């Protein structure tokens, strides 16, 4: 056999089911923190507009998702309110590890920006920001940096292309970009039917039993 395990495909299975498995599972089951230690002290300020991040983390997050999906002739991640989506999603109780790991990754990105360019990530030029993100993206597969980048990709794309009721995909900007215009995204084909995905996720987490 020429083929061996190292060349195996890992995209198994999902068209049979349909649209892919819980990709998030792979991104957030690890708990290593990227580049832990030697962290500069960040101001621990939480505002009412963002509940999962300090102000410094928020600035880094907004700048990072803006480079992931920048605005050009079509709307980008900031136009679609992706940071708002991530902030809200990290408040859901079912993703404790994402919540634990995501913010330290932002801090690590910011530290790297200070080391390389003597300024915060959000103050760097777009080219510098891209260079920093590429370093994280191209880090060894099991490194904290690569895993955090994967988490950033997952959260950005969920926020850009997920149901708008979670706070992202504002004006269905993401759906328009990829041409997703299927009728009946909600119950019985009524796109205006009331629906609260966050509440549904919460009920999944608590199991619906006593104390839910």
């Amino acid at each position, binding site marked *: *056999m020429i*083929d061996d*395990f190292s*060349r*195996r*495909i890992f*995209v*198994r*299975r*999902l*068209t*049979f*089911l*349909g*649209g*892919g*498995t*819980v*990709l998030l*599972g792979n991104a957030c*089951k690890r708990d290593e923190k990227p580049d832990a230690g030697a962290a500069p002290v960040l101001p621990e300020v939480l505002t009412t507009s963002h509940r999962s991040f300090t102000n410094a983390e928020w600035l880094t997050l907004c700048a990072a998702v803006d*480079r*992931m*999906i*920048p605005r050009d002739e079509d709307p*980008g991640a900031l136009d679609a309110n992706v940071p708002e989506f991530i902030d809200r999603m990290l408040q859901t109780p*079912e993703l404790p*590890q994402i919540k634990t790991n995501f913010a330290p990754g932002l801090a690590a990105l910011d530290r790297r920006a200070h080391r390389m360019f003597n300024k915060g990530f959000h103050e760097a030029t777009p080219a510098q920001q891209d260079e920093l993100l590429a370093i994280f*993206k191209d880090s060894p597969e099991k490194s904290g940096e690569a895993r955090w980048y994967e988490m950033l*990709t997952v959260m950005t*794309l*969920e926020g*850009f*292309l*997920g*149901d708008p*009721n979670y706070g992202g995909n504002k004006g269905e900007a*993401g759906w328009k*970009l*990829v*041409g*997703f215009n*299927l*009728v*009946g*995204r*909600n*119950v*019985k*084909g009524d796109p205006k039917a009331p*629906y609260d*995905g966050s509440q*549904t*996720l919460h009920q*999944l*987490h608590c*199991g*619906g*039993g*006593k104390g839910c």
Partner: protein
Amino acid sequence: MPNDVVDVCIVGSGAGGAPLALELGKAGFKVVVLEKGAWYRQDEFVHDEILNSRRNFFMPLPWDEPHLWRLGPDQPFTRSNEAWTANCVGGGTVHMSGYFYRLKPVDFRQKTELGAPKGSNVVDWPISYADLAPYYDKAEIELGVSGNAVPHPFLEPRKGNYPLPPLTEHPVAGEIDKAAKSLGWHAIPTARGIISREYRGRGACVYCTLCGSYGCEHGAKSSTLASLIPAAVNTGNVEIRPKCMAVEITVDAKGDAKSVVYLDKDGVRPEQEARVIVSSCTAVESARLLLNSKSSRFPAGLANNNGLVGKNLLFSSFGQSKATFSSKKFEWLESPMPFVNRSVQDFYTMPDERFGFRKGGTLGFMWQHPNPIFAAMGLAGKGERGVFGKALKDKLRAYRDSRILEFEIYGEFLSNDGTSVAVEPSVKDKFGIPVAAITVKRHPMDFAMTKFLVERGEEVLSQLQPDRIDRVGVQGETTILQGGTCRFGKDPATSVLDPDCRAHAVKNLYVVDGSFMPTSGGVPVTLTIAANSFRVADKMIARLKKGV
């Protein structure tokens, strides 16, 4: 906290558990079905990709309820959600795509007709296609299957056509027909567990396109949730208990199965006694349940006195390629109809060893699933081949302006000593129950076979003149299609279950999910599991009526 004794307690409400519950209820027996997942209403099925495909609406999260997974006994285990199917009333039939094929007569006599490849554990089934055929008819009627059984050289014997006419097809189906014919092959209609017309009070398919991975809010998908479960409950004899996780099956002093101990949604740990106990919670989870049911009579797990529970695990061999068309290229691309419903079975078996295998499988053609996050994750890639920024946006726009036709392989998965399920006592799920540990060692012939089938599929795609064809791979396995961990057979030394799917070693214990299957078949096995459960129901009812 014991409940009243019932006639039959069934663990699991999917393709295996539900037919049995329905038939027992109709025959007047009292049945309790324990289902670990929720009992969703139709209006809870929402077209929300994040909820359905990316969280724990259907599948458990790997840190709550992992399956340990490794490729070969020398590899470390990783925590995974591989080999789970939907955890809810209806099980995997709720989020399935519903490709409802029958096995073929050769699948029941594979060793005799095609031989057992060296290093495999291929055996003949203890029953024949003729034994199962009437129950295929019954399953198709009870669940509701739409299709058109056109004559072709590989058509399995069947009495008549499907109970419902075929779903409206996308015009690409006709293009595939022409392409296959030009190659000397046969593109045949794929039957679907989706109803094309109103049927028994269920609404017809509305062609919403979000089908696989989603529950159907119209009841058009022929899940057991939409079809058999309501009928079973209507008998007045069947109680479904959702959010009840089976922990173990106990035995009495004689070694007969006595009760199922389970955890309910409030964390209470009741016990359900029954005259007959049935496990039907997937091949992986049924093996786990039996292996976790240790007693002085069965110290290695219930019905595992010969050490075969969990052995000979089967999945379906997977391979895939995708053809991308710019959306303006052909007029027929503009149709929004979701269903391609074409299969090629010309390579289900091979006449000789020339290409390195005798038993092949099925190619199923379909449009790529429209889930946008799923598509974008694939386009973003990862590592040094991954992209972001303008490069990613350009890919997203190109995706918008194209259509992607794909096929996937449902190929024979050769059973072997290296592919099995065990339980790992040191790793427990959120309920505190030791988890299933899955080791997969693929037989090299599987890969040769899948590669051959993928190449044939690419020939079909090429005939359609796409802009490009990308091979996804030839070495995968579809783990939601599973079987084999309690294979049935006549010899108690070499099988766990008898030909009626009753444990050789425990006369009132049955397993009716895919576990009984000694070979995987070259098609998705959902319909076969349901048909077999209807068959077992007849056997079990005859015994219960005689008081044994």
